[in-house]
């Protein structure tokens, strides 16, 4: 059974949503990412999204763009990310989802990528610029390997599309909370809960919300309405503040802990 399913099953019993932090692999370096993943796993993360950096991340705002640039400067590539996953799997069984743009994966080779990911213990993949219409080739490889492909639903997705996407998405559905790119927002859209209800109408699969979620208050507000909460840019901002000092890992850990507390409240 896929680790993502196990986690959602356990959390549903407890009646709380999954906390899903996003970190860019290799930001600020691979060694730190390794320590970070283990730390946030201990401090309350339920699933971890590992970002695969790309030179042209067109769905991302300035914070994640900068993280990608820092990682690319370190020479991070897919081989390196797979070594990281391999190392992590010796220490933790937390579900790992790789998130990144299609070109580096395509260039690496879809089959080669899928096989390696599945073998090393990756549980799912999110490719923000691969909508269902273009995903046939990839799904043909990933599905038989038991590697989940998680698709995104946006506020601009009409009902007939939502219906199609939730059917294809495995593990959970990633609901993009805002019409825009990734990045922290002071306020979440006022119709967010209504939009989530619409998505839930079409599926029993878990629905996680991402893009713009950054504070414990926002997490507390969302928790009763969703099955998962993705936090990316806000976490990366904590990393940014601590680049070069030895508080980086505990600081991010504390941040994740504060979000977890907000969920449990």
């Amino acid at each position: 059974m896929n680790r993502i399913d196990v986690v959602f099953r356990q959390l549903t019993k407890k009646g709380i949503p999954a906390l899903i932090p996003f970190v860019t692999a290799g930001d600020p370096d691979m060694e730190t990412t390794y320590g970070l993943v283990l730390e946030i796993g201990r401090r309350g993360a339920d699933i971890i999204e590992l970002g695969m950096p790309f030179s042209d991340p067109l769905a991302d705002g300035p914070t994640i763009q900068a993280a990608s640039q820092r990682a690319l400067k370190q020479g991070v590539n897919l081989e390196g990310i797979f070594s990281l996953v391999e190392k992590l799997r010796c220490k933790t069984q937390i579900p790992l989802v790789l998130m990144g743009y299609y070109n580096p994966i395509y260039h690496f080779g879809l089959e080669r990528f899928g096989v390696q990911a599945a073998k090393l213990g990756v549980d799912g993949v999110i490719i923000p610029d691969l909508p269902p219409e273009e995903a046939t080739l990839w799904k043909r490889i990933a599905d038989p390997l038991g590697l989940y492909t998680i698709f995104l639903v946006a506020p601009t997705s009409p009902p007939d599309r939502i219906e199609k996407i939730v059917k294809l998405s495995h593990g959970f559905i990633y609901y993009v909370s805002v019409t825009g790119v990734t990045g922290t927002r002071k306020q979440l859209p006022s119709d967010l809960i209504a939009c989530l209800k619409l998505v839930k109408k079409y599926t029993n699969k878990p629905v996680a919300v991402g893009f713009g979620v950054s504070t414990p208050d926002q997490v507390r507000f969302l928790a009763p309405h969703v099955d998962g909460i993705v936090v990316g840019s806000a976490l990366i901002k904590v990393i940014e503040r601590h680049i070069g000092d030895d508080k980086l890992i505990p600081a991010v850990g504390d941040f994740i802990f504060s979000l977890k507390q907000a969920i449990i409240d």
Partner: protein
Amino acid sequence: MLPDKRGHFGLFGGKFVPETLMSALKELEEAYRFCKKDPQFKKELNYYRREYAGRPTPLYFAEELTKDLKGPKVYLKREDLCHTGAHKINNTLGQALLAKRMRKERIIAETGAGQHGVATATVATMFGMQCDIYMGTEDIKRQSLNVFRMKLLGARVIPVHSGSCTLKDAINEAIRDWVTNVRNTHYIIGSVVGPHPYPAMVRDFQSVIGIETKRQILKKEGRLPDILVACVGGGSNSLGMFYPFFKYRDIKMIGVEAAGLGLHTHKHAATLAKGSVGILHGSLSYLLQDEDGQVLEAHSFAPGLDYPGVGPEHSYYKKIRRAEYVTVTDEEALSAFQLLSQTEGIIPALESAHAIAYVQKIAPNLGKDTILIINLSGRGDKDVDAVAERLGVQL
């Protein structure tokens, strides 16, 4: 007829974009399909092409150049005579009219050298639309005159500091803006690139070049040409020239890419010659990338060719060998720039000079009866500073 329903030219093209944009692309596709068949839209577009952009542009027999080259009979399709000085206006006029139909009150665009930015700002101001142009900070430094032009035309120029701070990053930023403001904003992409329906739509708006050329050459020569030559950056002027001739298999079509400092260096923009297949800016096509699939910076001293991607339909033409793609270096283009200025009294854009340079190379092997048409996609006023500097002339 290509592309297919999902925007594919064989393996190439498609819609590789974030989910937020999928419905906007569908809306655009439907609006475009409707307008394409609407006689009123066609009438309006033709009116502005004629009265505002200055079409049809002449197909000019370049007698002096022909004499100089001692080879084929050379014609120039004079897109340099269009309003704003290049073929770019063909596309921006079409898309702005479409945006008006779609009731979008705001226009955004990317620009590298500033030509597409100027052409967009021009039509936006004429149609009374708000206009924001994304431009890399590197390009803003290099093209201050065009930055001022856009501002004069009432557009806001937004500097892009991300990535390599050039055209590809300006496109990323324009797409990010579009993702955020998609409900009231239309994105006018400047070439036959991007997600479906852009490559097909821009091609159609630019096809006026080839359609006019066909009519004009039949009138002048009583027959179709043997060879068409045009430069390829993203590929809109070349596709506009080639597409209406696609079905005439005997007509040779040659796209000229920028070899910059040479193909043996990393400083070139020869996407089709040296690139590999990948996904950039929403479509699958050839692109310049490193061994990890990260997109590389392109280089050409012709700013309009300085792009690491290329339109998917060109990739398709390459694959099925319908067109041939070749390269020309900065040096060769510079010499062709001077040649046309001195023989015909026409200063070409550095981009178009690439096409002329390639004709210079092949001319000795072609007979006098051969009819060859070069798409002179733009005029060179914008490039005189750069050329003077290259030639060591102090202005």
